[in-house]
């Protein structure tokens, strides 16, 4: 994996963990272990996303960097990657 793929993979791993934990928390809203797990991965996700976005452009259009060009429409798109990520 190149660096872009590594940084994106971190975001994907965190999102997957957060997604599954959120489903669990829907039916166990007071489980302190799950809440702590969610908090931990939430912080990791924020760091991972920032590292990716700063270097390789937005994951959502809300990630606009305030610069003088709109990078949201720049390729490559996720399905245009040569390697599996």
């Amino acid at each position, binding site marked *: 994996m190149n660096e872009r793929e590594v940084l994106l993979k971190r975001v994907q791993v965190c*999102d997957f963990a957060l997604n599954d934990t959120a489903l669990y928390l829907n039916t166990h809203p007071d489980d302190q272990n799950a809440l702590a797990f969610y908090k931990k991965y939430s912080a990791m996700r924020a760091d991972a996303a920032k590292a990716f976005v700063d270097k390789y452009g937005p994951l959502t*259009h809300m990630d606009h960097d305030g610069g003088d060009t709109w990078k*949201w*429409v*720049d*390729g490559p*798109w996720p*399905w245009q990657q040569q390697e599996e990520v």
Partner: protein
Amino acid sequence: MWSYDKKLQYPIDIKNPNPAMAKIIMTQLGGPDGESGAAMRYLHQRYACPYDRVTGTLTDIGTDVPKLHKGPEFPFIMRVCGLGFLGDTDVPKLHLLLPARANRHFAGSRFR
């Protein structure tokens, strides 16, 4: 990937619930020529699109419509309707349920 924000895209305040109109709106959302189908077409067209700016725009408009469809508006329409989605076979008879003004509004449209 699609994600959900817990807010309305546009404020909604239905003052006069109208089950007949709700059924038309539901068909416009999920029917054979509805917004859901349009959204899926946008999202599939972008895979063959040679221009990044168009790919981005297809992604954005294909994302907005499911947000509307799966947002609070849709269950609200279901509740106003009170009947559930009975399918498009009911659409040709809808003019019998609508007030005259609404029939004039839809005259010449495909809701006949």
